[in-house]
């Protein structure tokens, strides 16, 4: 049996599994169903949630932190970061605001994880 660690949450389940002819035939150790989809992705196309930040114009802070609304393919992370670097948004920003939709055709949005007020506004 092979072993991988699920990275979807801090529980870090150690998933034991075996594959025959490219198909998963047994799985154990995942404490939630997300572990199974993680395993499937990991064998086909590893994906990660990417937390980072984008520039804010006229904000009380120079950055708003953001994350992808769901995991995106790992191989796209460098391209994703290049893209995010170009983004500038105008304050105010609210937590949950969608900053970019369907980024790089991944089906994931980039959403704000921090509220940034506009300068000089209460």
């Amino acid at each position: 049996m092979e072993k991988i660690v699920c990275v979807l949450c801090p529980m870090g389940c150690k998933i034991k599994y075996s594959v025959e002819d490219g198909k998963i035939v047994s799985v154990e150790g995942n404490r939630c169903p997300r572990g199974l989809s993680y395993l499937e992705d990991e064998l086909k196309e590893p994906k990660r949630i990417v937390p980072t930040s984008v520039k804010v114009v006229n904000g009380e802070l120079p950055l708003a932190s953001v994350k992808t609304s769901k995991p995106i393919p790992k191989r796209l992370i460098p391209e994703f970061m290049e893209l995010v670097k170009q983004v500038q948004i105008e304050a105010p920003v609210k937590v949950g605001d969608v900053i970019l939709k369907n980024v790089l055709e991944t089906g994931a949005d980039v959403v704000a994880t921090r509220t940034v007020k506009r300068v000089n506004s209460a």
Partner: protein
Amino acid sequence: MKTDVLVIGAGAAGMAAAIAAAKRNLKVVIAERDEITGGILNQCIHNGFGLHYFREELTGPEYAERFREQLSRYAGAIDVLNDCHVLRLNRDRTALLVSPKNVFELEAKVVVYAAGARERPFGSLMIPGDRPSGIFTAGVAQRLMNIDNRKVGRKALIVGSGDIGMIMARRLTLEGIEVVGVVERLPYPGGLLRNVIQCLKDFNIPLYLSSTVVEVKGSERLEEVVVASVDEQFRPIPGTEKSFKVDTLVLSVGLIPQVEMLNGLVTLDKRTRGIACSNTGQSSNEWIFAAGNCTAVFDLVDYVTKEGERAGEYASRYVNGERFSLGVPIVPGENVMLTFPNYYNDVDDLTLYLRCKKPMEKALLKVGGFEKTFEDLIPSEMIVVKIPKQKLSNLDRIEVKLEEV
């Protein structure tokens, strides 16, 4: 000024304590020296927070925001003082507070101390060599990058493979800084496996185990860091030196509970180096309660929130006239590095936190009449168990043991 409850520090612990006290109809003042509430959460933009408490995975700022919102819902009962440093706490239950606007005294019936932890600085490592610029603690680097939008360097080496060190390795890489490696003196990674994978392996960042920094060189800015392998006593082995040409060194070598303000007022615990507390959050001084990283350094914010709520609840009951004894001591035994809380009072079941001393494949936890088996233990992963009070009755001392099985 007067209040029922003074909460010192508005991180995860302080916010939870303030809300718990306000729910019990007390008047609360929460003082925070930073401009915003939330503590360390605000700069931790990675995900990994709230899974136990909210059953969903949030980033640090999102987690903080949920509690800030709750604080504002109790605006009538909770007075949030930002930009306000508590300078001193006196034996007569008064505190001296300093803000850019004024300096004033506040009298409280009870205090919940929630000042968090600070990072072990470079100076404490006694590394020979120069003292150039370019050396940061992980928290400082994190704050510069994630809040102030400043790049800390071009090429970096990280010391310490705890979660914070590994998360910073990923952060620096994503921001276009080349991370040449993470150096760890233990023979195994200090943090969660999840972070070894998603922060190091994903980006091909080498992890140098059983290694330490033996010299830093640079005239103005850091230029070179020398790393060597260590033996079992962490002594560098001559002849194993490797040199890294980097302009940045990021240190993530541990957090220390911030306790100085309470020196002479409460007892500290030798192992956690934090404020010794009962399971009610009460310290050895009956009107001072404490919670969060100033009592013991917790892995997850979810635990900190729970402990903050607990301290807030018992502090409120104290204001309402209830009196608690500190209880019987809880002491780490075989294979146990530290435990929290440090005393047990049977008003409630015991939520016990502990760390093992070394990695263990399988171990039997024994606490009074309670036993439970655990697998795959590592010191960096806190064990949390709830122990019913029936299992702890009639003990005058509670020893916590992990027997290898």
